[in-house]
């Protein structure tokens, strides 16, 4: 298994929004989805997952409702709201710009300076 990366500060919210944008998920499912997409390269503190979910729901970016899990258990499913979708797009664009700028700074060679 490749070495796990620590999650950058403030990026968990964005990843959760992305995860639930692909379809309704329960909390544990969000965790699995992020790990799966990242190819297990990201380490997520389980303790901080739920506070983030509650915060996002409080802000109206995701919505929750009770449903049944794959193994017929009662589970809470989160879904992206319209506001959440908008926020995800904005954050994604923002992230890409930021990554591009940071990347171009870091990849600059000495003679070009």
């Amino acid at each position, binding site marked *: 298994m490749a070495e796990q990366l620590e999650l950058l500060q403030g990026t968990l919210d964005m990843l959760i929004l992305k995860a639930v944008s692909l379809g309704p998920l329960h*909390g544990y499912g969000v965790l699995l989805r992020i790990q799966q997409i990242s190819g297990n390269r990201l380490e997520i503190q389980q*303790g901080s997952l*739920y506070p983030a979910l*509650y915060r996002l729901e409080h802000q109206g970016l995701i919505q929750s409702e009770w449903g049944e899990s794959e*193994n017929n258990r009662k589970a*809470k499913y989160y879904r992206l709201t319209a506001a959440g979708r908008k926020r995800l797009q904005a954050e994604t664009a923002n992230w890409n710009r930021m990554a591009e700028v940071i990347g171009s700074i870091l990849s600059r060679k000495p003679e070009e300076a």
Partner: protein
Amino acid sequence: MSALSRMRSWWRALVHRQQAESDVETELRFHIESYTADLMRSGVAPDEALRRAKAELGSTAAQRDEWRASIGLRAWDDLRADVRYAFRQLRSAPGFTVTVLTVLALGIGANAAMFSVIDATLLRWLPYSRPSEILTFTTVDAKGTPSFATYADFEEWQRQSRTLSSVACYLPNSAYVKASGDDQMVSAPAVTANFFTVLGTAPALGRGFIADEQIPGKGKVVVLSDRAWQTLLRADPDIVGKQVTVNNVPYTVVGVMPPRFAFPIDDPTTQIWLPLETTPNYHQRNFSTPPCESIGRMQKGANLAAVQAELTAIQLRLAPLYGNEKLSDLAPSGVEATRYRDTLVKNARPALRALLLAVAIMWLIACANVANLMLARGMARQREIAVRGALGASRWRLLRQLITESLLLSFAGGLAGLALAQLLLKVFDKALNSQLHLPEHLAPSSTVLAALLILSVLSAMVSGLLPAWLAARAPLEHTMRQGQQQSGGSRKRHQLQQAMVVAEIGLSLVLLIACGLLLRTVFALRRVPLGFRTDHVLMVQPKVPRYKYRGMDLNRAVYQPLLERVRQMNGVRSASLTTVVPLSKGFDSMVTFFVSQGEKSGPPTRIDAKLRAAGPELQEVLGFRMYQGRFFNGQDTAESQPVAVVNRAFARLYVPGGDVVEKSSVRLSKNRQAKIVGVMDDFHQAAINESPVPEIDFCAPQLKETDGFYQPTMQVHVELAVRTVEDPAKFIPDLRSVMTEVSPDLKGSVFTTMDQVVEDSMGSQLLAAHLLELFAGSALLVALAGLYGLLSYLVAQRRQELGVRMALGAQRGSIIQLVLRQAGFMLLGGAAIGSVLAYLSSRMLAGFLFGVKPSDLWTMMVVSLVLLISGFIAAYLPARRAAHVDPLEALRGE
């Protein structure tokens, strides 16, 4: 969108807390189960899998806290915890809590009551637009004596004035409205057409008056007050255009004023307004023109002085139009303008200010006291606070906890204070009403409630902040190691506590001295020999619907038969008619004489005298004495020689040497002279604290309708003075039923005992004295409690030291002395400060005092002595406790 979801999650977290929490738990359990299952699938042992799943997520309790924190409820939860903790703390110290609550309730309650009064008077809401622009006017003659301006004058003001935007006139009057078959008495001022415009209030229904309705005969229209409309006409929504019967004449309703509108505002009677029909004599300037009252609206930016100067200039030009030269001296030539609002409070303003200062002082005393209690408690709780600090609570967190406690106490104290204020207002309701003409009932308005809230928070800050800061600042390890022992900073703290007790004592002395001065004033007022008897005297004002007696002489038709009947009643010693009641603030009548002294051609002497018509029995009823000659008697009838009686003040001015009996006479009408047959001893007819004014009395049975003095006496105001055998107040029901027997029209008559008239005449002093008694008494109690509390506390702190002293051979007496000396320093310090403050503030009282100087040394000494003695009594209890410390036990405690 997002605000809505926030609301929803907060609502769930706060209101459906249990449901929300169990949801969180269910969700977490599902997570743990799923994770455990996955771990087991990857080959971990079941027990180990469950342990790891739980550990990675963290405890459920922590997650639940995280949940609340993540939706921004941390501050709220902390506050709740603080409040709950404070509640527990306060409940565990009931003595402390109850003391603080009582003291705060006293301090805040007195203030709330005063605020309510001031809100209803000085800050009173008036139902007019921009009420501070509305003025009333009084006019005076060249000598400064009140002299009514006429309608014609007001018309000139309206025409010429540039500082006033408009002037309206009104004539106070009462009328009878027929409602469900019965006559109801209402107040019915006759007003000019621009009256409602000047006040700036539009009718709620219909319109106000128009100029044409002032033409005589065209004014059979009426504007109703909301109350008249509601109570007399069942709030008929289509009332405009309908007719109502006023004084037995049909009037058409043209408008209804909005709720709460009234003018005059301090008249509690149901009101209606009629147009002022200006008959030709309104346009003349002489002394038989009906006297109008006027209101005006100031131009924006004008000031009172300018208005007054301008109107006086106008009036000076108009004065010569009043008849001949001699009379022009009496014509209105000076104008005094007053804001209408200020006329409502009249002379009560300085009293209110002084009382407000008194309650402010009381509040300061209460705060100092509570601060001391908190300081002492803070020290007793040092260990607890230190432990909390050691367990990781930050200074700020500790401070916040302590402030929450003082806020909680203050709010509870404020609430109790509100109840106390209501009680206080109820107790003083009558006195306040007779002095201040308050609105019907004093409900705490939003202004008062806001003031109360601010006061509570302020109290918490003033009394709680310093003790809390000191407590939270205490060095932790030090306290922990020292345990219950005194710590180094306590000496400074004790000084602070003593300083506060000294301040309390000083401030309460200020109140006590003010109270003492007022009590001496009341005492002096009561001791003034009035010159007549007030006991067992009942004053009755017979009121009948005037319209039913139009063209009839009330004297003959009603008053005389009534008098005959009352005289025959059991329990009546004597009864008489009189037109003026001594010391009454009601009806009064003045007459001006010009007396030329012999042949000397100097300017004639002017005498402004009280004018009264009285029956022969009045002397018997009031029991005043004659100085010379006789009072009226049964032989003075309509057929005999008309006679008059004057008082000494009059006689002295009328003839040099005052020798008037049987020698002088006064003209009643053509060919009728009233001979002066007696001189009364001067008695206080005007006010207790003013010297007697000249007075001339005519014999009521002798006056004819053609006599010049008939109109200002028998025609305007007649009262029945009755001397009873038993308590006059208990006699009222009997008298009332006899009166309605004589005529059912008399049912609206008004009864007052003479004693009550006297009380009312010194009302403002009595009210201030009673309120100050209450304030100063509570202030003294609070200050003494403070002294007692501090000494008890200090004695408890010094137990071990005292034990050592006793073990080394100190006598009980010297221990008592030790404590009393400490008390003595505080008491003397307080008394010194208090005396200086009292001396500085006594000027505020100067206006109320009578028979005593504001800096009366006697009062100050007696009051200080009372304070010192009661202070030592309060100090003796802890001192005795100190002397009874058991040295063995005290030392063992170490």
